[in-house]
C-alpha cells in the first residue's frame, strides 16, 4: 500500500470525504448513543459526588473534611503516597534502564512479571500480605514475638499500595526509553562523562515527561486505592484509615453527605490528574509513548 500508487488527492480531503461515509442521521444517532452512554456512566456519577457533598451546606462540608478523623485520613493517604510513589519511581527507572538499554534473555518474561499486579484483584494484592505477615501468617508469630506490627499498621498499607502501583512508572518509561535508543548515552560516555552524570544529565532529561506521566498515574492510584488497603488496614479510625477507607466508614454509617464531602476531595484529585494527563498527551504526545494504551 505505497503512497505512490494512491491517487493524488490531498490527505485532508480524503479524510473528510470518508468521514461523510455515513448519512447525517446515522452520525447524529451514533453521537447521541455515545453521549447518553457517557452521561449515564461518567458525567452523572461525577456530578453526583459534588452535588451530594454540598447537600447539607457549606458548614457541614467544612466540618466533614476538618474533623480529626478526616484530617488523620488525609494525612495518612498523603504519607502512604509519599513513600510508595518514590519507591516505585526508583524501581521503575531501574527496570526501564535494564529493559530498554540492554538486550538480555528473559526480557519479555520480566516485562510480563512487572505488569502482573494489573491482572491481580486489589483484594488479592492485600490478601498476600496478610498471609505473610498476619497473626496466622507465615511470619506472624515471629513478628509478634519481636513486637513488630506490619498488618493493621502503616507498613502493610505501604506494601499493598506499592504492589498495586508497581507497574505504572516502568510501563510508561520502557517504551519511551526503547524508542530513544542508546546513542546519546554512548556519546556522553565516550566524551568522558561519569555514569551517574550520564544518567542525570542525559537519560533523565530525555524521559522527564513520560516519567512525570507515569508518576501522575501512579500517584492517582496510590491515593485512591481501596481494595488492597481495605484488607490490610484494620480500619482503625485516626490510625490506619486512609481517605477511601474513611469514605466507606462514613457511608456505611449513613453519613452520606460527610462521605461525599471527603469523596469530593479525591474526585478533585482525579480531575486535576485528568487535566494534567490530557495536557501532557497534548503537549508531549510523541514522548509519552504508552499514553494511548495503559
Amino acid at each position, binding site marked *: 500500500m505505497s503512497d505512490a500508487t494512491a491517487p493524488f488527492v490531498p490527505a485532508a480531503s480524503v479524510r473528510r470525504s470518508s468521514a461523510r461515509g455515513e448519512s447525517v442521521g446515522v452520525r447524529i444517532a451514533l453521537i447521541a448513543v455515545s453521549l447518553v452512554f457517557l452521561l449515564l456512566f461518567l458525567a452523572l456519577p461525577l456530578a453526583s459526588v459534588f452535588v451530594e457533598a454540598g447537600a447539607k451546606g457549606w458548614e457541614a462540608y467544612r466540618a466533614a473534611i476538618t474533623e480529626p478523623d478526616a484530617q488523620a485520613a488525609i494525612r495518612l493517604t498523603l504519607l502512604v503516597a509519599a513513600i510508595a510513589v518514590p519507591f516505585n519511581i526508583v524501581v521503575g527507572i531501574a527496570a526501564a534502564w535494564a529493559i530498554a538499554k540492554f538486550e*538480555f534473555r528473559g526480557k519479555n518474561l520480566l516485562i510480563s512479571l512487572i505488569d502482573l499486579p494489573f*491482572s491481580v484483584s486489589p483484594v488479592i494484592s492485600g*490478601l498476600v500480605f496478610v498471609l505473610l505477615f498476619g497473626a496466622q501468617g507465615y511470619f506472624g508469630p515471629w513478628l509478634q514475638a519481636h513486637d513488630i506490627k506490619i498488618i493493621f499498621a502503616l507498613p502493610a498499607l505501604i506494601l499493598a499500595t506499592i504492589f498495586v502501583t508497581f507497574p505504572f512508572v516502568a510501563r510508561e518509561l520502557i517504551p519511551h526509553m526503547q524508542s530513544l535508543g542508546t546513542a546519546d548515552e554512548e556519546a556522553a560516555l565516550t566524551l568522558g562523562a561519569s555514569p551517574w552524570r550520564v544518567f542525570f544529565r542525559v537519560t533523565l532529561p530525555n524521559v522527564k515527561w513520560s516519567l512525570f506521566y507515569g508518576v501522575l498515574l501512579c500517584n492517582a492510584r496510590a491515593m485512591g486505592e481501596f481494595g488492597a488497603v481495605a484488607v490490610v488496614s484494620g480500619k482503625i479510625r485516626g490510625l490506619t484509615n486512609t481517605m477511601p477507607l474513611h469514605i466507606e466508614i462514613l457511608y456505611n454509617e449513613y453519613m452520606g453527605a460527610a462521605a461525599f464531602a471527603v469523596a469530593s476531595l479525591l*474526585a478533585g484529585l482525579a480531575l486535576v490528574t485528568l487535566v494534567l494527563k*490530557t495536557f501532557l498527551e497534548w503537549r508531549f504526545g510523541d514522548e509519552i509513548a504508552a499514553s494511548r494504551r495503559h
Partner: protein
Amino acid sequence: MTTAAKSFRWREPSILPGFGLALGITLTALSLIVLIPLAGLFLKAASAGPADIWAVATSPRTLAALKLSFMGALIAALVNAVFGLILAWVLVRYEFPGRRLIDAAVDLPFALPTAVAGISLAAIYAPNGIIGSLFAPFGIKIAYTPLGVMVALIFIGLPFVVRTVQPVLEELQSDVEEAAALLGASRIRTIFKVILPPVLPALMTGFVLAFARAVGEYGSVIFIAGNVPMVSEIAPLLIVIRLEQFDYAGAAVVATMMLVISFALILSVNLIQAHARRRFGDV
C-alpha cells in the same frame, strides 16, 4: 565493566554501565513485593489439603460468587466492547462540539478512586436516585442487585476498549474504504468487511483488559451490589469475608481460583490472537 559483561553471558555486550545495579534493584523489588507474596498465596492455598480445597472450591457460595464475578465481568466487557467501539468511532471520525472534552473524560474511571465511584454510582442508581428512580416505577431495581454489579463493572472497564481501538481507527487508511465504496459496496458492507477486520485485534485486546479489570474489581462494586450471599456477592468480597473470619486458607483458595481462571482466560485469548496474527498478518 568488561568482567561484568563476561559474567552475564545471557546478554549482549554493551558499553553502558549499570545493568547489574538496575536489574538487581528491579528483581529484588519485584521478588519482595510481587513474586514472593503471590507464591505465599499459592502455598497457603495448597497447604489447605485436597479435601478442604475441594470443599471450599465447590461450596455453593464460592461458586455463586465466582460465577457472578466472571459472568458480570463478561457482560460488562461485552457492553464496553460495543459502546467503546462506537465511542472510539465517534471520537475519531466525527467533529462535534465538546469532542476534545469527551475524549479526555473517557479516562475518568482510571483516575477516579474506586470507592468514590462506588458511592456515587450507588447514589444515582438507587431506587430514589436520579437514574434509579426512572426505572423504579417499572419494578426494575438496579442498585443492590446483580444489575448494579454490572453498572459498576461497565464504569471501571469503559476506557479500555476506547483507548485500544482509538489509535487503530486513527491509522486506518481511508483509501481502502473509498475503493470499497467505488466498487459498489454499501456503507454497511464496507464497515463490516473493510473497516472492522483490522480493528478486531485491538477490540479483542480492549475487551480482555476490561474483562480482567472487572473480574477483580472490588471498591466500586461493593457499595452498589447489596452484597447478598449467593445473589449479589462478588468473589473479591467473599475473600474479604473469609479473611474477617480468620479463615486464611479459605480466602487463599478462593483467591487462587480467581487468579488461575482469569490467567487461563487471558492466556487463551492471547494465544488465539497470536494464532490469528500468524495467519492473517500483523494488522
